[in-house]
């Protein structure tokens, strides 16, 4: 076991895949000379050169469209959005070109691209820089959507994403970049579409993705002291959703709390609950609960920001409610 930050894991995944396949390239704002706005591409320009690590002008619509076209023409671009907030400029190309063209062309035009970057809230960057796009992207057939939590997730899933022949949305988290995790030292490629049980427990199933897995685990620690054993599921992939793992867990715990950093309305929690109702309604001994961001644009003030984002104590409270304790 070695310790590694999520940032390093992402970097290594890209470097390894670029070594393996020379069709893989990295394109985005400040990815080359600056080494990434968040230093995720540290060293890649030096190793792979300016033909494969490409700084773009500030033109998300254009460069994402260009990268998508390049993928259709046989390359395997990794397109970094400095943050996913800026991907809204490129939304049409992501949805109408990347996600739909394989189908519209009767299976001819492939688009093996990874669209990656930090998603959701960072620290105090306010409403325009803090949105979680998981539910938007996961809504759309033709895309795969991944949201890693640990360094293992980050590395194994990013490698899988690069190798996948489909467009993959890869939602990172700026706050997790600096967090260290134990990782196995081999060159693991994880399966897209499989959730991970990060902690087992018999009393309640707590489902999270990305940074909310940390919140869920914190909550599980607190709950354990009260004698409540929470099972914590890290979704890892959001589309396709590994509903089997979730229902399997609920079949044992009979209770569900969903924790997401995005807004609740038509969010991932809504989908998980609806899918659980469909496939595992009879397992539920209590109404499933959601812990989400407050239904507001994210505020800047420290106290308001803290109040807006999901916290472990809210998860604890929600668990107590569904467990009737």
């Amino acid at each position, binding site marked *: 076991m070695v310790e590694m930050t999520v940032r390093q894991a992402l970097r290594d995944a890209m470097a390894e895949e670029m070594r393996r396949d020379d069709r893989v*390239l990295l394109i985005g704002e400040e990815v080359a000379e600056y080494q990434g706005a968040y230093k995720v591409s540290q060293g890649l320009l030096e190793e792979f050169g300016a*033909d494969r690590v490409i700084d*773009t*002008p500030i*033109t998300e*619509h*254009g*460069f*994402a*469209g*260009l*990268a*998508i*076209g*390049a*993928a*259709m*023409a*046989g*390359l395997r671009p990794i397109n970094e959005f400095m943050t996913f907030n800026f991907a809204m400029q490129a939304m*049409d*190309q992501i949805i*109408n*070109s990347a996600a739909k*063209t*394989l*189908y*519209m*062309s*009767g*299976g*001819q*035009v*492939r688009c*093996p691209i990874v669209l990656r970057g930090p998603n959701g809230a960072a620290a105090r960057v306010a409403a325009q820089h803090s949105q979680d796009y998981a539910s938007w992207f996961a809504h759309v*057939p*033709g895309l*795969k959507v991944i949201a890693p939590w640990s360094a293992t997730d980050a590395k194994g899933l990013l490698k899988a994403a690069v*190798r*996948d*022949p*489909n467009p993959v949305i890869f939602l990172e988290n700026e706050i997790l970049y600096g967090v260290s995790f134990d990782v196995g030292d081999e060159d693991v490629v994880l399966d897209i579409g499989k959730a991970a049980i990060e902690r087992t427990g018999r009393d309640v199933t707590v489902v999270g993705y990305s940074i909310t897995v940390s919140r869920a685990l914190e909550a599980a620690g607190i709950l354990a002291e009260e004698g409540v054993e929470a099972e914590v599921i890290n979704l890892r992939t959001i589309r396709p959703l590994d509903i089997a793992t979730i229902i399997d867990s609920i079949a044992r715990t009979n209770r569900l709390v969903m924790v997401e950093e995005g807004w609740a309305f038509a969010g991932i929690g809504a989908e998980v609950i609806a899918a659980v109702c469909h496939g595992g309604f009879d397992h539920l001994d209590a109404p499933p609960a959601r812990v989400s961001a407050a239904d507001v644009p994210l505020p800047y003030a420290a106290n308001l920001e803290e109040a807006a984002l999901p916290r472990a104590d809210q998860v604890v409270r929600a668990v107590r409610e569904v467990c009737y304790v």
Partner: protein
Amino acid sequence: MSAAPADDPALLVDFYRTMLLVRRFEEKVGQMYGMGLIGGFCHLYIGQEAVVVGMDAAIRADDAVITSYRCHAHALVRGIPPAAIMAELTGRGTGVSKGKGGSMHMFDMERGFYGGHGIVGAQVPLGAGIAFAQKYQKRDNVTLIFFGEGAANQGQVYETFNMASLWKLPAIFVIENNQYAMGTAIRRAKAGTELCHRGEAFGIHGVQVDGMDVVAVHEASRDLVARVRDGEGPMLVEMQTYRYRGHSMSDPVKYRTRDEVQKVRERQDPIEQLRARLVESGTIDDAALKAIDRDVKKTVAEAAEHAQTSPEPDISELMTDVMVDADGGSA
């Protein structure tokens, strides 16, 4: 370089045949749409034939083409069988996109035909991406990126000009200025100079060409293609052309007079112009013209027949082609 097109009778006859094929094909599409055999949005290319015919003849089979929803002609001249295009229009399983794309979404990867895109302007960055791949792979190919004069107001076009110029991509931006974007005459939507200058601030040389004259189109294109292939970087050409029909089949065309259309047809029709030239120069005689006519009609009739008799896609196709399987198959 081979002989100038004006001196190459075989090439000119070929242009004539292909333009006529496009015209007759589109006329048939119009009829079939009227009969309810084709659905959705359907945009005909009638009037603009010289542009795509003259340009396509200036590139190689391994080069790439991308365009908008007004794509039947581009698909035809790339060599996609008319029957496969027509079957796409009728939504049949033998269509070039298996019936899943329809009029606006034709693709043929084997022929470097990248579509067929329904969102105005979307093909411009995509096309630059194809050119990017050509350069990345060190192939001496070029990409033709067709878009309308209406699309030329979309911001992504300028983002693309900038990147294409910065990175010297082998892209040719072709503005098919047919004077109207839906019901909007160009002067109502475009401020400033002629469109051929719209790339200049980004360092992209632009030319304006009479897009009703297939020889002029072809000559200009040969020059542009040669320069772009040589690594001079992207270029822009504004083709001045005209569409005779409505924007799409559902357009009542109240924004211009019949007279305006009639004048263009009489004075500038690309097919008539070339026919007159071929006849005057004695390159072709009446019998040969008739033979071409017959041939083209037969091809179109067969395509139409095929498109009506082919079966609809199997219902199981609903769920395929959403994702490529990891093992490589599309399922």
